């Protein structure tokens, strides 16, 4: 689960990390209130809040350039805010359709001396947390890793020992800090590690972490994402979820315990099992079709779930055909077939539907489908099913 920059900064602050003074705003009035807290004589930063990076270099759909604006004084801040609020921002990470900006974050400016990079990730290969830091902040860390790997330091942290102070010093010295900065950096790293570990984060990234002209460390941007499997343990993190940043079909699917991901093709699939669901999308693509979604109905595939799945699939206007691929192991094919038939009667299916069943009671399942009177094409193998649905969708086009 992702959260916005302003939420990440609040969490950081709670864990002892210095951040610029800032205020979130979702209405014109809130923008005025936010601005009133900031100085008219100094720089103010107006930042679009979306769950995607590249905001600074992005462009709004009406042509207004930049989702992060550093301006001087109240009037300029108000102007920037008016352009951004409720406008749609397109960045390298949003896709061409962009993301509507419903929240702004207005912060005081900062007299930057140097920009650093600091992050903690949970590394799957070593099953450890890893501190990643660099003197090259404010830029794409992947590029730094590729072009100047010597400017990147990685320090693994044992899950059972936790972060030790000597490790904080190791990183601080590697970044060239001295004097009181070592203490400041240790406090910051200790704070974000505690937050990362306690709240089951998968990533905490501060890019850039800056030194100002007085040599003090401040976190100028923050990105935090959490392990979806652990959210149930953190009601305070659940509160931070922004449904506006999620696809409504995906939100609906999760209510029915369906794993659903919207794609941009036109052949929808419904499958039991994530590996099989991915393989089904793959085979559609290999026949020249374009999958509209990933959908795993899981071990159940009962009538209610299949009905909910059909409804979600059909709410996507791009869908021109549906492929249902179920391997009934413990689940019996005749039970699944009955579920599909009942669902198909609950929901008006106006596009070609191909159903491929395999496994327990497959003959009974196929017979039920044949005798159902529902307009669908049964397929014996996954290859056949994919071929047929791709054909039928092409023919209709």
């Amino acid at each position: 689960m992702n959260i916005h920059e302003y939420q990440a900064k609040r969490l950081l602050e709670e864990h002892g990390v210095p951040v610029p003074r800032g205020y979130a705003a979702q209405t014109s009035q809130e923008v005025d209130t936010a601005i009133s807290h900031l100085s008219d004589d100094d720089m103010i930063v107006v930042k679009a809040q979306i769950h995607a990076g590249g905001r600074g270099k992005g462009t709004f759909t009406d042509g207004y350039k930049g989702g992060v604006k550093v301006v001087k004084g109240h009037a300029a801040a108000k102007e920037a805010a008016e352009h951004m609020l409720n406008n749609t921002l397109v960045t390298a990470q949003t896709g061409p359709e962009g993301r509507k900006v419903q929240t702004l974050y207005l912060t005081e400016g900062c007299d930057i001396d140097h920009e650093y990079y600091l992050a903690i990730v949970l590394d799957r290969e070593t099953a450890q947390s890893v501190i990643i830091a660099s003197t090259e902040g404010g830029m794409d860390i992947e590029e730094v890793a590729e072009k100047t790997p010597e400017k990147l330091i990685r320090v693994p942290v044992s899950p059972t020992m936790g972060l030790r102070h000597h490790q904080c010093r190791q990183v601080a010295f590697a970044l060239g800090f001295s004097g009181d900065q070592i203490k400041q950096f240790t406090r910051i790293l200790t704070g974000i590690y505690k937050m990362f570990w306690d709240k089951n984060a998968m990533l905490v990234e501060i890019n850039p972490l800056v030194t100002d002209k007085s040599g003090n460390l401040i976190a100028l941007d923050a990105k935090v994402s959490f392990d979806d499997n652990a959210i149930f343990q953190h009601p305070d993190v659940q509160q931070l979820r922004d449904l506006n940043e999620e696809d409504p079909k995906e939100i609906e699917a999760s209510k029915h315990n369906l794993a659903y991901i919207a794609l941009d093709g036109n052949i929808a699939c419904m499958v039991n099992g994530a590996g099989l669901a991915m393989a089904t999308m793959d085979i559609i693509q290999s026949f020249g079709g374009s999958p509209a979604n990933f959908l795993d109905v899981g071990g159940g595939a009962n009538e209610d779930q299949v009905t909910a799945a059909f409804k979600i699939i059909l709410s996507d206007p791009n869908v021109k055909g549906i492929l249902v691929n179920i391997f009934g192991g413990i689940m019996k094919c005749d039970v699944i077939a009955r579920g599909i038939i009942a669902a198909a009667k609950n929901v008006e299916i106006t596009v070609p539907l191909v159903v491929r069943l395999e496994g327990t009671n497959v003959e009974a399942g196929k017979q039920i489908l044949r005798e159902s009177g529902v307009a669908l094409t049964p397929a014996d193998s996954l290859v056949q099913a994919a071929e047929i649905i791709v054909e039928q969708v092409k023919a209709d086009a």
Partner: protein
Amino acid sequence: MSVLVNKNTRLVVQGITGKTGTFHTQQCIEYGTNVVAGVTPGKGGQLWEGKVPVCNTVAEAVKEHGANASVIYVPPAFAADSILEAIEAEIPLVICITEGVPVRDMAEVRRRLFFHNTKTRLIGPNCPGIITPGECKIGIMPGYIHKPGRVGVVSRSGTLTYEAVYQLTQRGHGQSTCIGIGGDPINGTSQLDAVRLLNEDPDTDAIIMIGEIGGSAEEEACAYIKEHVKKPVAGFIAGASAPKGRTMGHAGAIVSANGAGTAEAKFAAMEDAGVSIARNPSEIADALLKIYKG
């Protein structure tokens, strides 16, 4: 005789009295698995379904009933704790079926497994289990699609594996042991670990490896295959059509934003290792049978 599980396996079911635990234990007993005990804290002394003694702790199940393998059907919040308990009780094989275990918990479990001289091999979590057809089934796979034989199967997936196994069985080729390592990013046994087990098994003559996008498990396995495996190997990778940055159902099935963990890279590693590649899931058995006659 095959790897990890066989007719001498004495299974304890952690979470036996729960709905999932009860259902799958019944199925496994019907298949012929020797379930010697169950564990549900607080229900020690009861008899599950009039057949299987329930213990309060895993240690009891080992001491009183000689359990030498454990399967875990415990909700995500408590699954890691159950694994740790089984490790403490020195159970040699622990299989965690549970999906949704917090990744941090698994990082801690791995630390315990590999840095403290444990006697335990962990399979999973988020896995369908392990089966040596005709002898022992531990997990949620349908028994009837399998048949005893000499092809070893290792996979991150559940139903996709059943497809491949069913294809093999229908073509007259049985399986020595099928190991479901599960779909999580941090787990107990990797593709490499499982391939190594099958490679060293005198009763396995050929291997099928089914992988997914995300991480580098298949690449590591392929490096091992290239150097050490003379037996015929076939493979498939699911997720070639998946977009970057999204977890596709399985917590570990994600191509990261920087492009690591793609199906393409894994297919390339397989090619380099001389693995016979199935480009679509219907051809997994055929990809093996091209290079293995049984």
